[in-house]
């Protein structure tokens, strides 16, 4: 419940504050968004499964974002930044699909 309120507060904060993203952060932004989406859908699925856990939510979100950022950063340094980004996006998209499929099975029984 508290995290759900947090999600809404985050949207409102973003709309009110109109944050500008510093230039050095811009390559990481799409990756961060995909990692965050993965965390949200994972959490939603676990809520429906009845096994939601705040601790795992925090850890999985933070570690996803950090690992994704590190992979992209390393890729940039090695000159394969776009390929690394693609890899991160592919894996996280697969997870999002799997989570959404589980949510769908729960809600629609299909």
């Amino acid at each position, binding site marked *: 419940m*508290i*995290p*759900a*309120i*947090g*999600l*809404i*507060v*985050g*949207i409102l*904060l*973003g*709309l009110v504050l*109109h*944050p*500008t*993203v510093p230039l050095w952060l*811009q390559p990481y*932004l*799409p990756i*961060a*968004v995909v990692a*965050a*989406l993965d*965390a*949200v859908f*994972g959490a939603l*699925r*676990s809520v429906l*499964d*009845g*096994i*939601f*856990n*705040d*601790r*795992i*939510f*925090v850890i*999985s*979100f*933070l570690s996803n974002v950090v690992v994704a950022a590190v992979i992209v950063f390393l890729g940039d340094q090695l000159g394969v930044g776009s390929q690394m980004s693609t890899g991160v996006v592919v*894996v996280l998209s*697969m*997870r999002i*699909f*799997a*989570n959404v499929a*589980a949510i769908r099975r729960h809600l629609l029984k299909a």
Partner: protein
Amino acid sequence: MGQLSSNPSLDSLLSDAVASDYESAGADRHTSPVIRILAAGSAVLLTFVFIAAVIDKHNQSAQVNSTRQALIDRITAADKRVALAQKEVVQSTLDLGAAESAHLAGTSLGEQAQKRLEVLRKATGFTELFGPGLQVTLDDAPDSTGVSSSGFSLGQVRDRDVQSVVNGLWASGATGIAINGQRLTALSAIRNAGEAILVDYRPLSAPYRIVAISQSADATAGTFRDGVAGLMLEQLSNKYGVVWNIATLGDTTLPAASSSVNLSGGKQ
């Protein structure tokens, strides 16, 4: 997790990647308040980042649009300046001519020089020319599908075609020629730049209307049609579908050349 692929090693890789984080731990009923605050903070951060990304993307496209518009504005402004400057050049050339004739009038030597100057100006295109005209219209083939080895569509009119039409008109007795209102001087260049044909570095677009003035327009038209250029045009239209025709216009005025000519190539 269901079967993802037929390959077992690939299957394990995929199922590892998409395994739920929560399954291993199970629900935790006694969460400490710190963890709860952290979870709420993560949730806030999560959607905040999402909104930030959306806004950032929006800002970026707005920036690209405004840059594009600024560039377009600069191009049109520069075009206007060029047109204005060219008008000034023509006016100044006319003024110069008037001043010259005022200076040369009076003495017999001066009048001789002026007559010679008049003839040269007409021949080189630096004064308006009035007389019976004829027009050669040249256009790309309406449905040119073939593509030449250099990547141009075969039915497209090229600089060489326009050059031979102009040369054919000179050879048939034309005394002045303008292409789409651009007067040719003795030093005009007709050439391709990419897809476009440039006359004196000004791009033209099809159809190309090549207007010539000749004292005997009918005879010139006949000579042109039977000459090398006319036969070549006939062949172009038969082989590639290039559209062309020739017609006499009656009395026509050709404008003076507006572009200044760089004579630095000639030794003084």
